[in-house]
């Protein structure tokens, strides 16, 4: 058994894959190294829901057989990874982060896991999450079967949610990449808080088959990784048509940033207020520097406004309607009371009282939103906003309240509703770490039209070619 050097922990997918092919170490040794690190350090951040150590070693041995025969399957071959514990892995518990489902076992893998297995990627563990992905409206970071997600940069701070473990595990070098999900912010928020590159794909690009449904028309699965390049490689593996997902867009994705228009030809819309008056004072310098980098790449940054809609109310109504239907058995049985977060329990119960007319009204307004978003992208190529306007909050901070030191919301809303708007319109978003404030990560997000992931990733690759924020590591 070869000793695997510690510099693998923060290596990119191409770097690891090259070293495997060069036989610097075996896939089994690499899987063992990462799996043991995940087992040892995952609990430090409440990031680990379930170790799949033995399964990982078995899978890695098969990868080694292929590598020995030079049967190469692509850049993810032999790369260890983790998945948010809302993805089914056959024969092992899939808890959805929630006490009522702690013993739940599925007999079939989620499509995303099947696809990654076909590439030779090695699953080492299930990663923690906010219970039921937080759809009922949770108030505290402790809304999870595994306790509050702790930020690897500062364990008195939250890792963000609901993909808490996915972000923390990548940030701390416990897995080279992870799969998380987003309904309304659950990829963008933890990626921003933990300083990890992440991608929320277009709705329907990645199959939801085998993933817990929180909201059929809003849920997306996406990667957390070391770089935009890594996100592109992962998306290529997990995207594609799946008849098992009624929302599948039926499209594949091929990572080809070289065919995207260069950044200097792109019109990037943003709202200055988001990066100054609306942002925590400590993060403003990082945002200013990020804008400077984008300008130095030749980006045409143009001030713009989002279409005026009550995005929060629309999303919340749709989420309540769909979530209520999905979890009606849980609520009716009374098992909903076993959840950790009382506001979440109340939100789930109330969702059964949502009138159908309100759900339909929200879905009609959603059509208006989609139309206005299309018009916005007729003028601009990309929307730029903070990933979050503040550093990761303290673990005991109420999530539904602004943290101390946060400025009062300015009268100019800027792009305040961009996360909800993006999810309602099925838009992809790329999160890019762009600095540190109080030694905590700060990130921007780039949002594009559906299926514009290559453009976003190309911008991300150029941005990360000029900065090294995505390479900074927490004190693990």
């Amino acid at each position: 058994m070869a000793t695997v050097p510690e510099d693998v922990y923060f290596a990119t997918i191409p770097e690891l894959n090259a070293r495997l092919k060069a036989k610097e170490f075996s896939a089994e040794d690499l899987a063992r190294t990462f799996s043991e690190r995940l087992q040892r350090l995952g609990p430090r951040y409440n990031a680990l829901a379930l170790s799949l150590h033995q399964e990982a070693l078995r899978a890695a041995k098969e990868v080694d057989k292929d590598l020995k025969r030079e049967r190469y399957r692509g850049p993810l071959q032999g790369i260890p990874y983790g998945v948010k514990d809302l993805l089914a892995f056959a024969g092992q518990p899939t808890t959805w982060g929630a006490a009522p489902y702690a013993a739940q076992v599925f007999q079939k893998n989620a499509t995303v896991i099947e696809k990654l297995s076909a590439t030779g990627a090695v699953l080492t563990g299930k990663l923690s999450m906010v219970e039921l992905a937080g759809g009922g409206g949770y108030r505290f970071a402790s809304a999870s079967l595994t306790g509050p997600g702790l930020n690897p940069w500062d364990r008195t701070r939250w890792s963000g949610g609901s993909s808490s473990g996915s972000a923390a595990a990548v940030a701390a070098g416990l897995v080279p990449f992870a799969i998380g999900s987003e309904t309304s912010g659950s990829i963008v928020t933890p990626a921003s808080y933990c300083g990890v590159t992440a991608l929320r794909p277009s709705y329907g690009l990645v199959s939801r088959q085998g993933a817990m449904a929180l909201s059929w028309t809003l849920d997306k699965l996406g990667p957390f990784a070391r770089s935009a390049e890594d996100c592109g490689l992962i998306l290529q593996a997990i995207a594609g048509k799946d008849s098992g997902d009624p929302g599948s867009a039926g499209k594949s994705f091929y990572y080809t940033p070289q065919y995207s228009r260069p950044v200097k030809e792109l019109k990037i819309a943003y709202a200055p207020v988001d990066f100054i008056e609306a942002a925590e004072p400590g993060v403003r310098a990082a945002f200013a520097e990020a804008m400077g980098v984008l300008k130095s790449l030749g980006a045409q940054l143009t001030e713009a406004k989002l279409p005026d809609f009550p995005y929060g109310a629309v999303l919340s109504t749709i989420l309540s309607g769909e979530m209520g239907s999905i979890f009606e058995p849980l609520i009716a049985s009374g098992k909903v009371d076993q959840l950790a977060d009382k506001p979440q329990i109340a939100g789930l119960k109330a969702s059964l009282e949502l009138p159908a007319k309100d759900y339909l009204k929200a879905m009609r307004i959603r059509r208006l939103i989609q139309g206005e978003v299309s018009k916005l992208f007729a003028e601009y190529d990309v929307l730029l906003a903070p990933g979050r306007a503040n550093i990761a909050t303290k673990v005991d901070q109420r999530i539904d309240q602004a943290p101390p030191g946060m400025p009062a919301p300015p009268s100019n809303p800027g792009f305040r509703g961009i996360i909800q708007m993006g999810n309602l319109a099925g838009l992809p978003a790329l999160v890019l770490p762009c600095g540190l404030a109080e030694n905590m990560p700060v990130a921007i997000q780039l949002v594009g039209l559906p299926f514009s992931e290559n453009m976003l990733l190309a911008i991300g690759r150029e941005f990360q070619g000029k900065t090294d924020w995505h390479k900074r590591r927490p004190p693990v």
Partner: protein
Amino acid sequence: MKLTRRQLAASLAVAAAPAPANAQNEDLDAAARDRLKNNANALNAVNLPMAVEPAVVFRA
């Protein structure tokens, strides 16, 4: 930052501290219902032409 076990336990205890039971449950249930109503009020303020259909796509 270097965190002592005592500091970590203290911050976790605050997050895990259970809320007082019944009175808060009533408040939370009412608050959840109020949120639905507030959302509905916000939706009602949107100019929604009769011809606009829901954003759903059905195909065999």
